């Protein structure tokens, strides 16, 4: 206790004093701060008798205390998390060309509406006649998403893209079972998202990989060859992870349908297609949509997202319960879906996220969404064409909303994709997606999105060109990057070899 009189954590204080780092100052863990008796909260006044838990519960069921929990005043908490936030990079900080993640600007009005008390304070078991507004919102959102994708029915329950995929594949499984069919395999192209592969195995299917062709798309003849009565579905991403449109999708769908299978579409890249083409028209039977990508809801540093699933009529009976329905002028939760796969979540979906996506669609309208896709594709093609003399472009053709380069040119100077990515950080940009898709060695996958102006993209392009020059002339600048950040490169091998996954007192 005596130590507290001077400094709770002398070592931390000493450590901090050593560095004059301006705004990037170090910040100890929340557990390394505060002091006995400090308080950062207040509770409603006690208006009933204060009970001792021992009056009701045997002491064997009670905890001694929350010994290692922090004790901080409110200002301590605010400074701590404010400082942490300053070490982060978000879409609001700058250009974030993370491929396949659609890091577009997140309109502020939608943040405001999701926080409105009449949404944020509603209990999920509120009687339906008192939650008509939110049910209407969900119902209308389902309709908008069905219209945009060209599908018949929608569930907004899944919490993220991968959760939607799982729901979609379970509906496929349930539909096949209802026909008395038990199929074993799912076809997945090598350009698929990693989640597609793991989803198919979580849904108890064996994955069969399809190699994409020299043009970067799924070859029709390969599908024909692999498709048989054992295959439940093909999972395609369109546009695929190379940023290319799957030109043969409608023909692929014909082949798959002829053998009684389903076409699953990963809609993560829907930002390229709104108002241009409906995936449902191309023969897709089931598609998930990432609202936290295409429909501008923020990623939250890793969630929450929302992954609604849209299906054709044939799969509609298998949608999760409850459905959101309209009877006359009344909106209701319908649990009467005897063939439903069941529930994906305890309640009805990530409503806070749905509200933001609904607000976005209403702000844009049909013309606005089409404009989004047009400009997203224009930005990507512009970026691609301007950079292709400086970086190797494995698939040299028009792209959709994103493009994929590699480090093949820079490899000669012993500079890798990782080095290029880290050097971008020194210039104040978020790096692109790296080493993905796996079909391309050393991939740099760039998705500018429609919300980046020409000036921002030009600045990024010029920086990339500068980095290409540096790779040739002064490669150490890249290998040692980033240098102008709070943290230099981190030792990921050490983290995995000797995992320290929480703070403990002893240390």
């Amino acid at each position, binding site marked *: 206790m005596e130590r507290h009189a001077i400094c709770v954590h002398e070592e931390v204080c000493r450590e901090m004093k050593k560095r004059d780092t301006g705004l990037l100052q170090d910040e100890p863990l929340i557990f390394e701060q505060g002091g006995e008796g400090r308080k*950062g909260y207040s509770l*409603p006044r*006690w208006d*009933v008798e204060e*009970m001792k838990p021992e009056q009701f519960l045997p002491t064997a*069921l009670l905890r001694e205390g*929350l010994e290692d*929990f*922090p004790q901080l005043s409110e200002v301590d*908490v*605010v400074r701590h998390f404010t400082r942490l*936030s300053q*070490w982060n990079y978000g879409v*609001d900080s700058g250009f*974030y060309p993370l491929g396949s993640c659609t890091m577009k*600007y*997140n309109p502020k*009005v939608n943040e405001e509406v999701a926080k409105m008390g*009449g*949404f944020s*304070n*509603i209990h*999920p078991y509120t009687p339906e006649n*008192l939650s008509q507004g939110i049910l*209407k919102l969900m119902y209308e959102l389902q309709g908008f998403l069905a219209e945009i994708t060209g599908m018949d029915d929608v569930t907004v329950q899944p*919490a*993220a893209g*991968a959760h939607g995929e799982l729901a979609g594949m379970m509906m496929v499984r349930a539909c096949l079972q209802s026909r008395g069919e038990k199929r074993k395999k799912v076809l997945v192209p090598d350009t698929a998202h*990693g989640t597609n*592969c*793991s989803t198919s*195995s979580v849904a*108890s299917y064996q994955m069969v990989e399809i190699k994409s062709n020299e043009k970067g798309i799924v070859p029709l003849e390969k599908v024909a060859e692999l498709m048989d009565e054992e295959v439940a579905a093909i999972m395609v991403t369109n546009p695929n992870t190379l940023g290319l449109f799957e030109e043969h999708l409608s023909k692929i769908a014909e082949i798959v349908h002829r053998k009684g299978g389903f076409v699953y579409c990963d809609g993560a890249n829907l930002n390229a297609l709104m*108002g*241009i*083409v409906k995936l449902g028209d191309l023969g897709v039977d089931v598609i998930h949509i990432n609202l936290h990508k295409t429909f*501008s809801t*923020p*990623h*939250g*540093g*890793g*969630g*929450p997202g929302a992954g609604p699933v849209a299906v054709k009529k044939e799969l509609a009976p298998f949608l999760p319960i409850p459905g959101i329905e309209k009877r006359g002028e009344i909106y209701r939760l319908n649990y009467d879906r005897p063939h439903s796969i069941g*529930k994906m*979540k305890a309640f009805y*979906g990530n409503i806070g996220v749905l509200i933001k996506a609904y607000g976005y669609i209403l702000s844009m309208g049909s*013309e606005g969404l*089409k404009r989004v896709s047009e400009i997203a594709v224009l930005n990507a093609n*512009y970026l691609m*064409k301007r950079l292709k003399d400086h970086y190797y472009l494995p698939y040299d053709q028009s792209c959709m909303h994103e493009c994929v380069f590699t480090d093949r040119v820079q490899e000669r100077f012993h500079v890798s994709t990782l080095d290029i990515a*880290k050097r971008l950080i020194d210039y104040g940009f978020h790096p692109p*997606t790296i080493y993905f898709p796996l079909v391309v060695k050393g991939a740099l996958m760039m998705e500018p999105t429609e919300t*980046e102006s*020409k000036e921002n993209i030009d600045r990024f392009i010029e920086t990339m060109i500068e980095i290409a020059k540096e790779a040739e002339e002064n490669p150490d600048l890249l290998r040692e990057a980033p240098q102008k*950040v*709070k*943290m*230099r490169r981190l030792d990921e091998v050490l983290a*995995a070899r000797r995992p320290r996954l929480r703070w403990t007192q002893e240390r």
Partner: protein
Amino acid sequence: MNDFNRYIPHTEEDIQIMLEFVGAKKVEDLFEMIPKEYRLSKPLNLPEPLSEPDLLRHLQGLQSVAYSSFLGAGAYHHFIPSVVPALISRSEFYTAYTPYQPEISQGTLQAIFEYQTLVCQLTGMEVSNASMYDGASSLAEAVLMAERVTKRKKILISEAVHPEYRKVIQTYIDPDQEEIILIPYKKVEGRTDEKRLSDLLDGEVSGVVIQSPNFFGVIEDLHPMADKVHEAGGLMIVGFSEAVAYGILKPPGEEGADIVVGEGQSFGIPLSYGGPYLGIFATREKFVRNMPGRLVGETVDLEGKRGFVLTLATREQHIRRERATSNICTNEGLCALMATIFLSCLGKKGLREMALMNLSKAEYAKKIASQIRGCKLVFSSPTFNEFVLRIQGDPERVLEGLKGKKILGGFTLGRFYPEMKNHLLITVTEMKTKEEIDRWAEVLEKAL
């Protein structure tokens, strides 16, 4: 110019220059690879775009009106310090992606490391992941993990586990390969029947799922059950939907739990009609490689400075693909941050005090409810902030009566438990004043 252009910065001139550069005459030319017959010729059938003020007006009109609510059953109305919404509104947090580039994501990474630590401290476990979708899906993932660890296919679940959580588990498992058996609850105590549990346990059981406090608000005696589960070689999975209870309850880790999963919504996350919430997932160190979801670990940078990174990713979908422990990718990061800030504010004393206030107010409500003629407390075991009340008369009619006075008087248990058709589940958190509780009782008495 259209209002929607506020989110698209391109001028007509920009577009012309860019089109020319890429060798296109008009924007449509960029979509030539899409077969012509599929390209849309007419606009999508969507409402006309709204300006910001019109959008605000429209959404204001969809809001619900607040009632005095005694609803809980897996979603709880607790106090949220203003610090929580203020801090999570920092856009460096909420507009960032998953922290794949650690050098510019230390804020998110350190906060998750703190979250993982808080979860371990709260649950008495050794490792926590960075979050799952919600309590129910977290529990379903725990069931799948128990199967991976034990290589067994039978799961026992207490009937007193939240019925919606059970439904989610049912969805997640493959009925052709896995079997679920329900353990009944004791009709007097409202606790899981540990004798029936013993009878059902055998060498095929991968895991046993017990919720505490359970769906009836009753606190389970976990330790004796955990011992039996371990004797049979299975894993003890402890779930919860009301995390605040652990401000006073013994951590499940000290009661023999192997996996602790639950709903973290009570920690600073608004009700929002059921989501987004926070799936908590914690386990023992020895099972870490079988765990689903992301993990943040401590390491050092080139200069030896402490820093944090995503780690043990070889379990995850983007590396291991079809052999991953789960397909989860995006989780509930911002909700985990809310919980971290909430717990940092409440701290060692506050969480305990909040839990005690819940207990005390619920006990007060129990006392006055038991004095109402036609009402009876059903279960004899201790409860936390929820309890089951049997009422005379049709519960739907009674709740309608309360609703007429702007009170959501409780949850009808008959919806999930046919044998409890005259039973209400009543929830009383610290947010209910004594006056509100008195008025609830008064109106309830009249409505019977």
